[in-house]
């Protein structure tokens, strides 16, 4: 076997998988995982750990996998991460742990994400979850939002003996994990629901259909309902639009709307009453994970799909694996072009999208080369649906209804990086609501830090 190469991963055939929502990647079995684990050099000064936002002891868990001690591997991972089955699937490993793997210098890095997933799936299958739980301490904490930040914070606090209630605006908990990321990338019943059930089994209550700021305010939670502290993990759900002509046309959707219909509402499946538009040809504007998820969902609902992205392939912010899968499945990538107008017919419905060619100029603040328009290069693509995946920002609802909660100019809640404490006593925040749209692992890490921050705040420093 070539030690420079990863043990190949088994996958659904691209021709078959574009017709359904089954998970694309099958993951390793134990034999494959042990073979891949054997590629790890167990560096003494392991760089990969620095690439992990929650500092999982990667060489240690891989060493356990090598020996076939999966239970031990799970214990090591769970010490740092509470949503490993999710993160093993959706983390951008190529820019985090795997980027720093020494194996990656000459060949392919160790498939750390795939190994994490294997261990976490094994834990789910064998029902082993860490459950050392302290006796109840009589203090109540409210967690707002049930995405990765909220779930993690709630789980950690429950373990420390707090009585935790999560309040979620939607009818199902999970945040982006249920409404945004499609099942072909992150199975719902097999993974997300299991993670949530695990958190509930620690005694966390989940109150769905509760829009904090409307159904109840943070001030009421603290002053009237007896909560000693509140954690805000409300994400960054507000979709952006471009403000170009035709954007209000019939058949123009935000990726959030399209994905929510398909994922949360299960539109397109036999029993669901929620409608979803099926187009002949779709343009998806954007190049991140959200754009790719929308594109591959549209493909599965029978459309021809064009990604429209203003930079080049190297700058696509989506996970490398997803770009690879999308190409295999037949998504058409139109790079270095930017939409200038959505063309509509006499009824006001989409009939095409007018784009202009771009070229890469000098680097901007983010270090990426700035795309500039090529004068006079406009051209039209005929499509009957457009999905806008241009990013999202935090919902202003909570800030607008909570006295003394500071936000920055991007409407992100201001919170201390270490403790998650906001400008308001007893109120903590973390995840996309603080950073703007980021990643599952960062949200999870923030939820964990805030749980520690809340514990110190309520128990006066005892750790």
């Amino acid at each position, binding site marked *: 076997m070539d030690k420079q190469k990863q043990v190949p991963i088994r996958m659904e055939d691209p021709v078959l998988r574009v017709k359904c929502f089954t998970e694309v990647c099958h993951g390793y079995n134990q034999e494959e995982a042990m073979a891949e684990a054997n590629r790890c050099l167990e560096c003494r000064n392991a760089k990969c750990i620095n690439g992990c936002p929650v500092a999982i002891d990667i060489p240690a868990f891989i060493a356990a996998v090598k020996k076939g001690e999966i239970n031990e591997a799970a214990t090591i991972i769970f010490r740092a991460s509470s949503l490993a089955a999710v993160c093993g699937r959706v983390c951008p490993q190529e820019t985090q742990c795997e980027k720093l793997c020494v194996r990656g210098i000459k060949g392919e890095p160790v498939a750390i994400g795939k190994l994490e997933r294997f261990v976490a799936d094994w834990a789910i299958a064998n029902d082993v979850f860490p459950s050392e739980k302290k006796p109840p301490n009589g203090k109540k904490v409210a967690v707002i939002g049930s995405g990765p930040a909220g779930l993690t914070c709630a789980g950690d606090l429950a373990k420390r003996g707090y009585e935790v209630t999560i309040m979620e*605006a*939607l*009818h199902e908990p999970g945040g982006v994990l249920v409404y945004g990321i499609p099942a072909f990338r992150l199975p719902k019943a097999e993974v997300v629901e299991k993670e949530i059930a695990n958190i509930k089994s620690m005694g966390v209550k989940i109150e*769905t*259909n*509760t*829009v904090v700021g*409307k*159904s*109840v305010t943070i001030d009421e939670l603290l002053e009237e309902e007896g909560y000693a502290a509140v954690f805000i993990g409300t994400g960054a*759900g*507000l*979709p952006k*639009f471009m*403000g170009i002509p035709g*954007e*209000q046309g*019939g*058949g123009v*959707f*935000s990726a*959030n*709307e399209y994905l*929510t*219909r398909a994922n949360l*509402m*299960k539109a397109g499946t036999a*029993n*669901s*009453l*929620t*409608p*979803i*538009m099926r187009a002949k040809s779709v343009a998806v504007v954007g190049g991140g994970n959200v754009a790719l998820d929308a594109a591959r969902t549209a493909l599965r609902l029978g459309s021809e799909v064009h990604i429209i992205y203003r930079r080049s392939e190297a700058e696509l912010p989506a996970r490398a694996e997803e770009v690879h899968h999308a190409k295999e499945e037949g998504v058409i990538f139109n790079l270095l072009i930017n939409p200038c107008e959505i063309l509509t017919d006499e*009824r*006001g*419905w989409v009939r095409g999208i007018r784009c202009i060619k771009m070229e890469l100029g000098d680097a901007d603040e983010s270090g990426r080369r700035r795309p500039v328009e090529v004068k006079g290069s406009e051209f039209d693509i005929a499509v009957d649906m457009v999905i806008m995946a241009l990013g999202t920002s935090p*919902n202003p*609802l909570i800030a607008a209804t909570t006295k003394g909660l500071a936000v920055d100019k991007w409407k992100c809640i201001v919170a201390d990086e270490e403790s998650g404490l906001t400008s308001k006593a007893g109120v903590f925040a973390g995840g996309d609501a603080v950073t703007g749209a980021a990643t599952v692992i960062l949200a999870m890490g923030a939820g964990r830090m805030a749980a520690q921050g809340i514990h110190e705040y309520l128990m006066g420093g005892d750790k």
Partner: protein
Amino acid sequence: MYKIVESLTLTADIFQFEVKSDRIAKTCEPGQFVIVRADENGERIPLTISDYNRKDGTIKLVFQVVGASTHALSLLKTGDSLKDIAGPLGKCSSFVNEPQENLKQKRFLFVAGGVGCAPVFPQVKWLTGNGVTADVIIGFRNKSLVIMESEMEEVATKLYVTTDDGSHGYHGQVTAMIKELCQAGQSYDICIAIGPTVMMKYVALLTKELGIPTIVSMNPVMVDGTGMCGACRLTVDGEVKFACVDGPEFDGHMVDFDEAMMRLGQYHSEEKAAYRAAIAE
């Protein structure tokens, strides 16, 4: 699960539920709405709150069967439960936050079309309950579709009922009634019109001519109702607004009604097919 304390049939296809929800009943104000799901497979349906009882922790909802989802809702009886209900959503009517002395100087004219009577009711009740004048026009296509007449009679300063075919009350559309009232010397400081989008469009055109500031309550397609999806976006005074968080009430003289009607039709063919399948069952 949220218990339906009482389910009533108002007309052949209009129903009223009184639903238990302590949190919503405690905080809701006139003008706000909720999102309900009948069951596991149900769509998220926005419905304006048509009355509330803070003491009993209940709210009332009135809906018309227009598709498969509202059909499924209409099958629920007293004692059954709604799977989900979230709210109160949207902003409340602006008069709720206006100083009472100002309000008492004003004369309100409400114009409700069909099932639009339901959202108008709590607003009128609130205003007249606070000693403010509120005349109300309720309009229907014909007598068999008339709803909430006696309830409205109780709270309105003056009630005018119209039917398009003259089978009950004034013979003509609500716009003709508005003209007649103004010609007879009635003057109004503000008009609040709620009903089908075309009705609101024509009322707004007329009141613009008559110089009466007008508020409408928009009912676009919605999914989450919390500002997350943009399905509910409208153009108001040239700017894009999300009805679920910026509204649902807007300046009727600024709303782009034609665009709103086009956007309402986006799922028409899918919805029709689903409805046909549902009633065939």
